């Protein structure tokens, strides 16, 4: 395959401007003031670096941003390249959506928690599913034993989805569902539940995560080989583009990539690389780029290195806009907008002294807001221990409300824009992205880089280096490798009712006795044919199958039979 020279040329373009930098003033200060001082007063570290390994100067000045054009590189909010924000008025118009990820136990438990959060001022729903649902197994499958309802809510059939959204009018809320390998099935169920409520697909607002590429890279929740999943995603894109104008059928996710150990530049690079792969998928399916790109949205992590995170978000917006315009020739400005959800970092939370996690989450949430996020989930302090209690989830939501209502921060757009340090760092993140894209191109493109394990190994290497830094105390985590105390059961945690598994098994077994087996069989056969014929759109038989009460496991089993399993490349 011909190598795409675009990425290399962008990197060249960015670095060329740096050669003209004149830093005489800084050099003078460094020589006459700083060096002398440091000689007498040793600094805390020999060198200061951020998580991406970028070495940081003691101070940044106007000289460090000479290569950055205030109008073309930074610009204004709501204007290309959108570095400062995707909307002209940002939070002055409407605050970010406070969207708390929740789900556990049986569908009834989750329905209750969703209603509780809506009552307390949450503005969008976000559903977490359990492991059997995420991998596409029914509650009564032997593989599901012990895992039903543990990490999220269990959905085995359409009946479960009906219970989750009971009493919640789907034309009035937006719902995000964190589901990937079986995303098409859950989307079909959501459409069917809405139909029963009398809500048409074109009215549905929300998101299914659907980002399978990051599953191979990081979270490792797949069902079929990559090509099979990509084909189903293509069908979801086409179906949604035609029938669900308000629906985000994919949320391109860096969250899990970061949690798996990536640094900020790796998260940025691999996530955007995934994003452009989905653009290619749509374009290759014959969709004009402006017909579908406005529906693509993103999901990033926000962890503790404050300025690095803010720079990451700003760089992401600029890169997306630039590449969509230059490489994909998008004309509609909405195709160039990188809209994103943020979740604070679960991996940054500590098991030790868990109340400290409230502070960590607040700092991360602040960085996400300063980075211009469209919606935000704040983690609860007890999540290194278990799924959150109601009290812990409420404090996490209150953290966002305090930032929104009491600090004045949302009143001015991109308030840190123009900071020498932040603008310089934003550019460094951008360069880091183009550097990685060149490497991915050399590895044969994104899919090849995933199949060979290159990207996974890059992340695993960073994870190991990070752990060694913690062990060597080069990186301090309060309460973990410094400032430790002896503690005995510091908090009360949520326990999952064992009833959920029993209830879900009984429910699916009852369903199998009462549904029309002939309908189920027929719908699954139709689905099999659609899986086998890549010219058919699988969404139509998928919706038919869930309405006939075929279970999630049965539907995914058809796919497993047609496509076979997937084995990860050797990573060690």
């Amino acid at each position, binding site marked *: 395959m011909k190598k795409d020279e675009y990425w290399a040329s962008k990197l060249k373009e960015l670095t060329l401007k740096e050669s003209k930098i004149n830093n005489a003033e800084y050099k003078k200060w460094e020589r006459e003031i700083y060096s002398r001082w440091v000689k007498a007063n040793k600094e805390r570290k020999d060198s200061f670096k951020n998580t991406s390994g970028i070495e940081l100067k003691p101070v940044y000045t106007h000289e460090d941003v000479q290569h950055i054009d205030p109008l073309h590189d930074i610009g204004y909010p709501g204007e290309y390249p959108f570095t400062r924000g995707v909307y002209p008025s940002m939070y002055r118009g409407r605050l970010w959506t406070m969207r708390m990820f929740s789900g556990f136990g049986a569908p009834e438990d989750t329905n209750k928690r969703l209603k509780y959060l809506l009552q307390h001022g949450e503005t969008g729903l976000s559903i977490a599913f359990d492991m059997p649902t*995420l991998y596409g197994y029914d509650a009564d499958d032997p593989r599901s034993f012990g895992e039903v309802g543990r990490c999220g809510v269990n959905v085995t059939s359409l009946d479960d989805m009906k219970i989750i959204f009971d009493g919640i009018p789907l034309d009035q809320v937006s719902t995000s569902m964190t589901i990937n390998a079986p995303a098409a099935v859950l989307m079909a169920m959501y459409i069917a539940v809405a139909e029963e409520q009398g809500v048409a697909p074109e009215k549905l607002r929300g998101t299914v995560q659907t980002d399978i590429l990051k599953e191979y890279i990081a979270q490792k929740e797949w069902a079929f080989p990559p090509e099979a999943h990509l084909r189903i995603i293509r069908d979801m894109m086409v179906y949604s583009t035609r029938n669900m104008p308000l629906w985000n059928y994919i949320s391109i996710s860096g969250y899990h990539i970061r949690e798996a150990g990536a640094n900020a530049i790796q998260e940025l690079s691999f996530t955007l690389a995934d994003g452009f792969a989905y653009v290619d998928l749509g374009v290759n399916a014959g969709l004009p780029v402006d017909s579908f790109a406005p529906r693509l949205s993103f999901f990033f992590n926000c962890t503790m290195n404050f300025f690095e995170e803010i720079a990451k978000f700003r760089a992401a917006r600029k890169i997306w806009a630039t590449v969509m315009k230059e490489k994909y020739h998008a004309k509609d400005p909405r195709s160039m907008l990188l809209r994103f959800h943020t979740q604070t970092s679960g991996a940054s939370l500590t098991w030790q002294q868990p109340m400290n996690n409230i502070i960590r989450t607040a700092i991360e949430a602040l960085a996400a807001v300063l980075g211009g996020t469209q919606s935000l989930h704040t983690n609860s302090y007890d999540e290194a221990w278990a799924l959150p209690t109601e009290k812990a989830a409420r404090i996490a939501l209150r953290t966002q409300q305090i930032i929104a209502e009491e600090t004045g921060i949302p009143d001015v757009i991109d308030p840190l824009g123009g900071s020498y340090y932040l603008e310089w760092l934003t550019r460094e993140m951008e360069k880091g992205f183009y550097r990685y894209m060149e490497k991915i191109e050399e590895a044969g493109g994104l899919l090849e880089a995933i199949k060979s394990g290159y990207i996974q190994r890059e992340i695993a290497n960073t994870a190991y280096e990070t752990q060694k830094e913690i062990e060597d105390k080069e990186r301090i985590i309060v309460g973990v490798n410094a400032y430790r105390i002896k503690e005995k059961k510091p908090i009360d945690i949520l326990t999952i009712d064992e009833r959920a598994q029993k209830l879900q098994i009984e429910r699916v077994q009852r369903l199998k006795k009462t549904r029309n087996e002939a309908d189920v069989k027929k719908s699954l056969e139709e689905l099999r044919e659609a899986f086998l014929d890549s010219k058919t759109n699988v969404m139509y038989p998928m919706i038919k199958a869930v309405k006939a009460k075929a279970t999630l496991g049965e539907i995914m089993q058809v796919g497993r039979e047609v496509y076979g399993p997937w084995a990860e490349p050797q*990573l060690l």
Partner: protein
Amino acid sequence: MGRATVVVKNKSRNRKIRILVAKPGLDGHDRGALVLCRAFRDAGMEVIYAGLLPTPEQVARMAIDEDVDVVALSLLNGAHMTAFPRVKKMLEEYGGKDILVVGGGIIPDDDRVKLEKLGITGNYGPGTPLKTIIKHITDRVMRERWKIKKQT
């Protein structure tokens, strides 16, 4: 970090600890498992990684086929109380009774006590130093599997 080699002298020959690292369930969160694999290797052990999504039965079978000294289990999905004991039970059933089992992940205190009673030890949570985990495994293998009193 603990780079001190844990190669110990058996009465007759030098031996390395053979360890199988596995996540016996529907759990793709492999960051910790992969970090441990490398740490164990850097500490001088022979490491076998089970790959993703094996069943407890497959893990037990693999442990016996690979003739390991110890199986290190990691789960972050809350299924440790069913999956860990199942691995232990299958080891006994397949004739690998003497293979040691250690665990780790998001394991509440009450569960830890129950697992210990079944002979599944360690059960370390997030933030545990690698040194601690390596020492626990090394001590246990020498004491219980190789019947060696002291590291030489």
